[in-house]
């Protein structure tokens, strides 16, 4: 164990001198009707990677997971992915159509939706491309960039099932096609079983209205499944007998294997985890001694049951502490409280879910999928913590 820091040589002026905040008056309760983070936290923001896409409008940014703790993601810094930009659509201008293989094609206003029974659930939303840049190897030096295409919010919405029942869906309709009001429309086909199971037509996240960039006023929530299915600015739901095979489910969000064939309909997000601190953007600011290793774990197939942490690049593992019992399709926070000896470590985390799935290594994944994947990289991440406290993104044998 590290020795406690020596007593200060002389009294700390921050304690023994009068300080302005202890003498004067701060802000009144009328100063920020809607508040933002304090200016000292200005680095805790979404960031994008300019070289990744042709422009910022059909692009993505990243949640600053390296600087967050707990499990809830504030909407203000929750990652965004748009295919034709974040549009502005008012509740008054909002319409939702349900058509196709239904008894009664219907149009709903926003106010209509608020009259259906609602549910509340915390779910993660992960872009299928999260960690995608890392298929080629260690590329981006920060958990925000390698694993930040994820957020986790408490959603309030109407079960999609209720809207399908309202229109009288035909049991011959095996698929539900959903699309948004933006120019991309981002159409996706969802099997009817999932649509009737746990999909929500959501209008609130973390208690308040969805933000513009997350689909205000209404988005789809598709628990455990890739974020591209979570259609924003939802405008139409069509019951069909076949998938539409839209651009988003053929050209994109398919997974090309080593032999050149490609998987389609890879909806579920595999169990995954990442250490958020220490990490390249969250170096260790202290010497040897007590160190909190923390991170996030999640699974699209159910609840996280266990997370292991390795400090030696996967040679040996210790089971971390889950902050709370895992719940289905939601982020879990884990902690491992260690005594750091001040020497370098190769940090890894490994998630397990209630189906018994154990997060694989990148090597294991590449052995099955080859090297041409873009999406669904849930391989174990390695951070190299150096003796000086700095951390870098590496891969290990």
């Amino acid at each position: 164990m590290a020795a406690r820091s020596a007593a200060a040589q002389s009294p700390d002026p921050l304690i023994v001198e009068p300080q302005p905040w202890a003498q004067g008056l701060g802000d009144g309760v009328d100063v920020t009707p809607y508040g933002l983070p304090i200016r000292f936290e200005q680095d805790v923001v979404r960031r994008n990677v300019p070289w990744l896409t042709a422009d910022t409008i059909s692009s993505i940014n990243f949640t600053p997971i390296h600087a967050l703790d707990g499990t809830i993601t504030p909407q203000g810094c929750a990652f965004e992915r748009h295919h034709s930009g974040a549009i502005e659509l008012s509740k008054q201008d909002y319409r939702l159509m349900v058509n196709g293989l239904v008894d009664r094609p219907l149009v709903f206003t926003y106010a209509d939706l608020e009259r259906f029974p609602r549910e509340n659930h915390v779910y993660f939303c992960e872009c299928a491309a999260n960690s995608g840049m890392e298929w080629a190897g260690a590329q981006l030096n920060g958990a925000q960039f390698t694993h930040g295409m994820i957020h986790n919010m408490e959603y309030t919405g109407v079960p999609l099932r209720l809207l399908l029942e309202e229109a009288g869906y035909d049991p011959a309709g095996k698929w539900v096609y959903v699309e948004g009001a933006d120019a991309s429309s981002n159409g996706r086909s969802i099997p009817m079983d999932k649509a009737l199971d746990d999909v929500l037509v959501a209008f609130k996240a973390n208690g308040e209205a969805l933000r513009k960039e997350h689909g205000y006023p209404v988005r789809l929530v598709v628990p455990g499944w890739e974020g591209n299915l979570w259609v924003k600015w939802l405008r139409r739901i069509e019951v069909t007998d076949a998938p539409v095979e839209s651009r988003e489910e053929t050209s994109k969000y398919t997974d090309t294997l080593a032999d050149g064939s490609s998987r389609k309909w890879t909806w579920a997000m595999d169990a995954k985890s990442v250490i958020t601190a220490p990490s390249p953007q969250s170096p260790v600011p202290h010497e040897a001694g007590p160190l909190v290793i923390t991170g996030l774990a999640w699974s699209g197939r159910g609840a996280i049951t266990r997370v292991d942490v390795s400090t030696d690049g996967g040679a040996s593992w210790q089971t971390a502490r889950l902050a709370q019992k895992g719940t289905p399709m939601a982020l879990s926070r884990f902690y491992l409280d260690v005594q750091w000896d001040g020497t370098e470590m190769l940090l890894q985390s490994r998630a397990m879910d209630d189906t018994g799935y154990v997060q694989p290594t990148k090597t294991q994944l590449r052995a099955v999928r080859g090297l041409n994947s873009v999406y669904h990289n849930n391989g174990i991440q390695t951070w190299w913590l150096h003796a000086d406290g700095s951390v870098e993104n590496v891969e290990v044998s």
Partner: protein
Amino acid sequence: APFGLGRAALPEEIAAWDVDVLPDGRGLPEGQGNVLTGEAIFTDKCAACHGDFAEGRGNWPALAGGQDMLADADPVKTVGSYWPHLSTSFDYIRRSMPYGDAGTLTADEVYALVAYILYSNDLVAEEFTLSKNNFAAVQMPNADGFLRDDRDTMELPRWQVAPCMEDCKESVNVTMRALSLDVTPKDAAPATVPQQTPVANVEPASEP
């Protein structure tokens, strides 16, 4: 219906929004367009981003090329090399392109543009005219290239096993370092990073 909420959708309303085109051609409007007409429209409305021959420009998507290289390293995936259904092009272009001015193309223009993209991919001749009637006859090279998600059988049995806790590896070596690539946005880089030698060469991967 249990709640009695909403109102009946009018046929004109359904027609306005229900524009998806399925692989079997359902949803295609009446119309037609040929390669040369398509080339002219493409040059005018599309080439600035996608290149004169639909070959892509900078980071903007290529729509042609890349055939027969899906099993190679870093395959170029285009309408010609990758897309299994022609319906997808019609559907997507009609509703989403040109980028910034979506929904402005007539059905005939979309047929012509799709014909031109097929031509750019060497899939039809310069004289080709695409229409609702011959749409289904076009063969897409990668039509059989997709299989249904088989992770349940291919992967889950491998990963649903008891995890190793001790002596899991003989040795551990660093094989790749992001720092040597240096593609992380600078404003987000950590304050201090150690000076060390690059270990391996890595490359930016494709867009999300």
